[in-house]
C-alpha cells in the first residue's frame, strides 16, 4: 500500500481535530472555576460535585438509564420475534412489505415520529410521562433490532434446524438451543443499538414527555436554552467517559465473539 501524502495526512488530522475539538472544549471547561466557557481561571471539580448534589438531575439520570435499559430489552425481544417471523414467511411479497414497513420508523425524521406518537398517545389516552416515553422508545428501537438480527437468520443454514428436528428436538428446543445461540451476535448488536438510540434520543422524547418527566437530552436542551452552565459541561465530561467505556467494551466483546467463531470454524 502506498503511503499517504503529507497533505492527505494534514487533511485527515484536520477532520479529526474538528470532530473532537468541541467535545474536548466542553470537557476542558468543566474544570473551570470561573463560570464561563471563555476564560480558564483555575482547576476545580465543583461542577462535578454540583451534578451529584443536584437531586433532580440525579433522578433524571436514573430515568434516562432506566428507560434506555427497559426499552432496549423489550424492543430486542419484540425485534427478535419479528425477525424470526419475517424469515418464516415464504411469500416474498409479504416479506418485502413487512420489511418496508419495518424501515419506515428508521428513515422517518424524529419530528414526525414524535408528533405522530403524540397524537397516538393522546387518542388512546396514555398519560404523557414515563410510560409514553418508554413506549415510544420501544417503538422506534424495534426496527433496528430486526435489521441487526435478520442477516444472521438469513445466513443460517436451514439444515441445522432440520437436523435438530430429526434428532427429536422440540420447537422450543430448536428456538433456544439452535436459533438463538446462532443469531446471538445479531441480538447483541441490536440491543446495543437500541440502547444508544434511546440514550441519544431528544426529539421524540421532547414531544411525548409530560411536565413531570424528563430525560437527560430534554434536560440539557432546557438548560442550554437558558444559557451556558458549567454543570452541563460536567455532565458532558461524564457522558464522554461513559461513552468511551461502552464503545471500547462493545468493541472488545464483539471482537472476542468473532475470535470464537473463527476458532470454531
Amino acid at each position: 500500500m502506498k503511503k499517504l501524502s503529507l497533505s492527505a495526512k494534514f487533511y485527515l488530522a484536520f477532520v479529526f481535530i474538528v470532530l473532537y475539538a468541541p467535545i474536548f472544549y466542553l470537557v476542558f471547561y468543566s474544570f473551570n472555576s470561573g463560570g464561563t466557557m471563555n476564560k480558564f481561571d483555575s482547576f476545580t471539580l465543583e461542577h462535578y460535585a454540583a451534578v451529584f448534589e443536584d437531586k433532580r438531575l440525579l433522578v433524571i439520570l436514573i430515568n434516562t438509564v432506566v428507560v434506555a435499559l427497559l426499552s432496549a430489552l423489550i424492543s430486542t425481544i419484540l425485534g427478535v420475534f419479528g425477525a424470526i417471523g419475517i424469515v418464516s414467511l415464504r411469500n416474498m411479497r409479504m416479506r418485502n412489505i413487512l420489511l418496508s414497513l419495518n424501515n419506515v420508523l428508521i428513515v422517518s425524521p424524529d419530528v414526525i415520529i414524535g408528533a405522530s406518537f403524540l397524537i397516538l398517545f393522546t387518542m388512546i389516552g396514555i398519560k404523557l410521562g414515563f410510560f409514553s416515553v418508554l413506549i415510544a422508545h420501544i417503538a422506534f428501537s424495534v426496527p433496528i433490532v430486526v435489521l441487526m438480527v435478520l442477516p444472521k437468520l438469513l445466513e443460517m443454514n436451514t439444515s441445522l434446524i432440520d437436523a435438530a428436528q430429526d434428532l427429536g428436538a422440540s420447537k422450543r428446543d430448536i428456538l433456544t438451543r439452535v436459533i438463538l445461540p446462532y443469531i446471538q451476535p445479531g441480538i447483541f448488536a441490536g440491543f446495543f443499538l437500541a440502547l444508544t438510540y434511546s440514550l441519544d434520543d431528544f426529539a421524540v422524547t421532547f414531544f411525548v414527555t409530560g411536565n413531570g418527566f424528563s430525560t437527560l437530552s430534554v434536560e440539557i436542551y432546557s438548560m442550554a436554552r437558558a444559557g451556558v452552565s458549567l454543570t452541563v459541561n460536567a455532565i458532558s465530561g461524564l457522558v464522554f467517559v461513559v461513552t468511551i467505556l461502552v464503545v471500547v467494551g462493545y468493541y472488545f466483546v464483539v471482537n472476542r465473539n468473532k475470535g470464537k467463531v473463527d476458532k470454531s470454524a
Partner: protein
Amino acid sequence: MNKANKTALIPYSLWILLFVIAPIALVGYYSLLDLEGNFSLINYQTFFSSIYLKMTLSSFWYAFLVTLFTLVVSYPTAYLLTKMRHKQLWLLLIIIPSWINLLLKTYAFIGTFGLSGPINAVIKLFGLPEQQILFTDISFVFVAVYIFIPFMILPIFNSLDKLNPTLIDAARDLGASPITTFRRVILPLTMDGVKSGIQVVFIPALSLFMITRLIAGNRVITLGTAIEQQFLVTQNWGMGSTIAVFLIIFMVIIMLITGQKSKGGRVR
C-alpha cells in the same frame, strides 16, 4: 422454517399496526381537521400560501447546503481512511463522536461561537472586530455538517472498502489519469454509498429543529421547526400534521431517488 414460527409474527405485526400504520394514518387524519376539529382543507390551503412555500424552499436550500458540505468533507476523509493501516480502528475513532449525545455537541458550539468564545478570540488576534457568529445561518450549517459527517463517512467508507483495488490498477495501467480513474471507476462504483449517505443526511437535515433553536436562534426555520412550533407552541395539530404530511411525501421522493435496487432478504 415451520408454522410455529408464524406465531412469532403476532406481536411484531401488532407493533407495525400500532406504531407504524396508525401514527401515519393519524397524521393524515389530523391534517384534514381545522382548529375547531371540523373536516376542511384549510390547512392545505395555508400550506400553499407564500409563507409556507417560502419556508419549504428555504428548508430544502439549507438541507441541500448541509448535505453538499457534508459530502465534500466526508468523501475524501472516507477515501483516505481506507488507505490507512489500521483503518477499522480509525473508522471507530470517527464514529465515536456520533455517539456523544447530540445535545451536548450542539451545546459545545454555543460556547465556541459565542462573542467571547475561541473563534472570536482568533478573529480578534487578526485585529478584526468580533463577529456575531451564533444565531446566523452560517453557524447553523456548520453545526449541522459537523453532526452529520460521521453518518456520511460510514456508508461511503463501506462502499470504498468493498471496491476491488485491482480495478483501479487496471484503470491506471490502461493509461487513465487519477482524475479519470476517480470519475469513471471509483465514483460510479461507490455511488451506492454516496446515495445512502445523502439519504441519511438530507432527510434529517430537512427536519432538524433542535439545532435551529439553539444555534440559529430563529433565523433558520426548517420543516421540522415548523412542525414542532405548530404542535408544541401554537397547539395547532392540524397545521402541524399537514406540514408533516408534506415532509413524509418529500421523504418518500428522496428515498425513491436515492434508493438501491437490491433490498430485502434473499430467496431461499
